[in-house]
């Protein structure tokens, strides 16, 4: 059975159907991609999968448990982390603290009102290790707000990694990055592949086709095609659409 499964998700905002009968399955250890044109419902779908919205119908299963409609914090604690398309950091915190606050050790001590916040040497070492992974080892003491765009992206991913997820959702990780930044990010995602199960929403077809094991195409709130990058290249719908031209 897949690590994560969504079955027949429906969601409407008012009288607008946003998701219609979406079923997705993400296998452990794989990198699954989700693509589709703007406004196709990709981010909304993500928000349902990670607990931000509750679906009107359908089930979300993770690791054999039904997590439909659970709160974001409950889902996060089960081992699902996400990054955001519009960057969502603790802006006033240093790079160090952005990651440190997301560690499960910190979370467990969250109710401690008098202890030292990050006094533990093991914790500090762990933060450094995560920051080294995403290439921010040199930026530890900088304020998040002051980082350049590409590094903020990397920090987003570091924060998501800090919660030691089994499954990591990345929402348009290359958005707003130049070709340099994309290359570096592709390299990072490639490194993460195998360490953690990844689900990536992406606009950049080249990026997704080179990294993903499986890709689902979402349009008009529905999954209209699914398969490996090779299969999708020959899919008539994908070929005929703008997406196909890019691919």
């Amino acid at each position, binding site marked *: 059975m897949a690590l994560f499964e969504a079955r027949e998700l429906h969601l409407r905002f008012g009288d607008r159907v946003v998701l219609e009968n979406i079923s997705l399955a993400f296998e452990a250890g794989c990198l699954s991609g989700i693509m589709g044109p703007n406004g196709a419902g990709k981010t909304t779908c993500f928000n349902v999968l990670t607990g931000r919205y509750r679906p009107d119908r359908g089930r979300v299963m993770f690791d054999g448990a039904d997590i439909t409609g659970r709160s974001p*914090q409950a889902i996060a604690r089960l081992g699902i982390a996400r990054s955001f398309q519009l960057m969502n950091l603790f*802006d006033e915190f240093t790079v160090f603290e952005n990651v440190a606050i997301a560690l499960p050790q*910190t979370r467990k001590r969250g109710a401690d*009102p008098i*202890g*030292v*916040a990050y006094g533990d040497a093991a914790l500090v070492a762990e933060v450094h290790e995560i920051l080294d992974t995403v290439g921010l080892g040199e930026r530890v003491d900088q304020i998040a707000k002051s980082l350049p765009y590409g590094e903020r992206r990397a920090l987003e991913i570091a924060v998501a990694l800090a919660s030691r997820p089994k499954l990591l959702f990345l929402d348009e990780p290359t958005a707003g990055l130049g070709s340099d930044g994309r290359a570096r990010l592709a390299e990072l995602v490639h490194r993460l592949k195998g360490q953690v199960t990844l689900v990536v929403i992406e606009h950049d077809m080249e990026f997704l086709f080179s990294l993903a094991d499986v890709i689902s195409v979402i349009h008009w709130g529905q999954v209209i095609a699914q398969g490996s990058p090779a299969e999708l290249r020959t899919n008539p719908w994908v070929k005929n659409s703008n997406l196909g031209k890019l691919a």
Partner: protein
Amino acid sequence: MRSGHRVPTLTPAMIAIWAAFATVPLWIEHIGLYQYLGVEILIFATYALAYNLVLGHSGLPSFGHGAFFGLGAYGFGLAQFHLVADLWFCLGAAVAAAALGGAIVAAFISHRRGIYYSLLTIAFGQVFWFIAIKSHAITGGEDGLLKIARLPARLGVVSFDLTHNISLFYFVLAVFVAVSLLLWRLVHSPFGRVLKAIKQNETRARFVGYDVWRYKAAVLVLSAGLSGLAGGLFAMAQSSAFPDVMSLHYSGYIVMMTLVGGGLVTFWGPVLGAIVFLLARDVIGAFTTGWMLWFGMLFVALVVYRPEGLGGLFLRPARAKPAAAK
């Protein structure tokens, strides 16, 4: 906070502030002021620090904190009249009454933030204020609760009489030292850092696994309890408790003190704010009946031009550097 940077429990600034306060009774009368003002300043400084736990450290703009201060004042008086006339017990009752009030409010509003949080705290503040005014039988209504005694501080075999303003001053100073030390620790503890994280980005905090509701509820209860402690001290200092400390005016005053002093940017800002506010009241008030006219204008000017407050003026040059612990 920086990597591996430990914030010391005692800092030079902290000790300097405590020591400076300790000298106040020696000179305050020589500059034309009076001993009771020192007591009042310390009480409001304690209250403002407690209030800043929600405003500055958690980003929760409560506009009804007067209710908790007032609950503490009435709790102190009523416990003394109807239960046990013991200082520690009565202060405990003040904290408990205010924390209970805080818990009730928290249960309704902890999923809110921003302006809605302010508006609902105003509504709850008004409810408590209104009840205090109308429950003549319990609170004495608008006449207030009178003849509250300044109980002696019993510590085992010794007992300190607090009926004189100077001895009361040192007792209040001891409470101030304890509260400021506790809050300093708290702000730099894991709990405090989570609050700061929630203040910056509630959504993100939720997605890294924090139950934001509980933290917001807990911090309001804690802040309410400590505000109630200050309220209890105030009832003792005034020897009475009145509903007006629960009014929108007074709830606004504590926001003013905290902001004017720079509570949004520095830990000690609220203390500075309480000093400035009460000195302005007495000094400007000596020349004109409308002291709030001038203080209000100062406040408006600060909100418009220097929202980081007076404390922010001193900190300006240091802020360019990466956040050293303040």
